């Protein structure tokens, strides 16, 4: 642990302000609370919002897990973990169930989270209405007035043009039947995991200086029409070539031998855990 900086990098005043912002965010589910985002030693757009939340919440007994696009060993996840470790000395883990804080870029872990865990999502563009209105001054008013026709029209136009909705990641959600909210660029596959989540979900946008929250047991609904229901990414008939999982979000890769597309779990820690279990079972079997 580095002694020449403050515990968890930020000074106590900053952490306190961020925690207050978080409390307000929890009190108004889905509402983007502005905060004086600090410049961090990692680049804006590389997780500074999530990092500021992590650093203001973390205490010595915490166990931290960091994921980047599903992987614990991805370079940016490693870099963030290293910074937190260097400035706090807390325990790190790759196991979802052993962690108390999970900072993640664009994935909700496959393993269901519990009420003792906090999921911190990194957010590049916190404003779900930004694609229909560029000005912050206006989008703030639209939220206040619950004037969401722009967001609905966006989906409607896609149906008109393409015959179905064509959103990718970051498909807008309605939180607590009130605010239209950007769930951060998690795949549509992860949207249903936000609904009635046992864990507190905090979302931090450092560059855009906003924090918002999905408190535990909150209704989260993906925006959709009755006749064009919300659809997650389709992995039907696909299975992980490593652990054999189905029904999880998968990376599509090219088999170097056959040149055919094969699939593997995007959540690397989930995949590893399954592989380890399998191995244990096999070992146990052979000793019986």
């Amino acid at each position: 642990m580095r002694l020449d900086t403050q515990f968890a990098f930020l000074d106590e005043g900053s952490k306190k302000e961020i925690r207050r912002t978080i409390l307000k965010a929890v009190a108004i589910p889905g509402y983007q609370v502005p905060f004086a985002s600090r410049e961090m030693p990692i680049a804006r757009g590389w997780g500074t919002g999530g990092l500021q939340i992590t650093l203001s919440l973390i205490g010595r007994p915490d166990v931290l897990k960091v994921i980047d696009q599903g992987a614990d060993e991805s370079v940016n996840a490693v870099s963030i973990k290293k910074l937190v470790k260097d400035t706090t000395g807390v325990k790190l883990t790759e196991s979802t169930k052993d962690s108390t804080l999970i900072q993640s870029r664009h994935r909700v872990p496959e393993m269901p989270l519990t009420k003792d865990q906090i999921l911190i999502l990194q957010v590049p563009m916190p404003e779900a209405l930004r694609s229909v209105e560029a000005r912050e001054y206006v989008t703030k008013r639209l939220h206040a007035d619950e004037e969401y026709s722009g967001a609905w029209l966006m989906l409607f136009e896609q149906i008109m043009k393409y015959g179905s909705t064509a959103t990718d990641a970051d498909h807008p959600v309605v939180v607590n039947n009130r605010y239209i909210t950007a769930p951060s660029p998690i795949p549509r596959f992860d949207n249903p995991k936000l609904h009635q989540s046992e864990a507190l979900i905090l979302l931090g946008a450092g560059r855009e200086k906003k924090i918002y929250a999905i408190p535990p047991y909150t209704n989260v609904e993906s925006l959709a029409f009755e006749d064009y229901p919300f659809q997650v990414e389709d992995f039907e008939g696909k299975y992980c070539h490593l652990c054999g999982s189905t029904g999880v979000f998968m990376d599509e890769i090219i088999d170097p031998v056959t040149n055919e597309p094969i699939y593997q779990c995007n959540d690397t820690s989930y995949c590893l855990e399954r592989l380890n279990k399998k191995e244990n079972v096999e070992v146990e079997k052979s000793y019986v």
Partner: protein
Amino acid sequence: MGYVAVKGGTMAIDASLKRLKYERLKEEEVLEIKTILASMRTMVDQVMSESSLYSPFLAALAIKQAEGSMEEAVFLMRAHRSTLPRLYYSRAAESESMLVERRISASFKDIPGGQLLGATTDYTHRLLDFQLVEESTMENEQWLTTYKEILKEVEPIGDVQYFPKVVEYLRNEGLFEIYTHDDTPPVDITKESLQFPVSRSARLQVLTRGQTGAVTSLGYASLRGYGQVHPTVGEVRVGALPIYVEHPNEGTYDVEDDFYIGDIRLTEVESFVPVNVKNEQNKDELEFEIGYGACYGRNETKAIAMSILDQCLEHPEADFPTHDEEFVLLHIDSVESTGFISHLKLPHYVTFQSKLDSVRNVKKGGKKNEA
């Protein structure tokens, strides 16, 4: 395993950091901080200005560590700034109290106090000076001695000379509106996020810490046609401005109790912009308004561009992006723009997989409709 890009991150980063250090050290030259401070003054100024942290020493250190990359140096300084407690706010400083080293006006030939060219590259011919390839310390010393001899012959003025502002002259003539002093404490944009419409104090803070290139580009765009501001530079001044803080716990306020904590070198610009106003008879009349620019150190282009943008943002009714405060203020910050552009280097395969699914789905749907 077929796909290795996400694995082995720890080791890869470690190796990359070592490689970075190797690249900096391999030529076995050590750049001294004092060399940077002595010979790269404008770069030090620019780093301080864009990072809004006035410390030539730290800026020079950042330049060294960043191997001369402007965006990296500014980034280092900003991150360091986050860790510093803010103990005091200074008293408002009046730029009449500046110890001026350069002051020019493009509006008047003879300004009260006179034009003072100071040290400027404006009239150098931009020819590469090949003599600098083999610069000799001895010759430099000789030159300095001779120069100092000449300076001795200059009669020093008894008192410290302060220069009046050019605008005061026009104000006395009734060409500028006279405003009462507005001593509302300024917003601190590093402690509160911007809320639109922003106050002028917040706007000026964002502009002054803007990336030099970005501020210059937008100022230029406005001047060239994408804006309605065509200023005349009323005054550019460069010099040292003394900074005072109040006694933190003295009950009664007295200027005499203020502490002088040092001075900052500053470029300040006041641009004169003719605007249409309605007079009492509801007739069009021309009057002048001021665009204000100021930044740490010596950076006249940025300060002038800032004065143009300040004036643009005073007139949001004009239908140009340079008059839109969200467009200007949210896109000129070095750390924010370079950070978000560079984040595109991060893996995006989850989001891309999601997009792929969407595109495939649309394609399938299209075929179905045709059938």
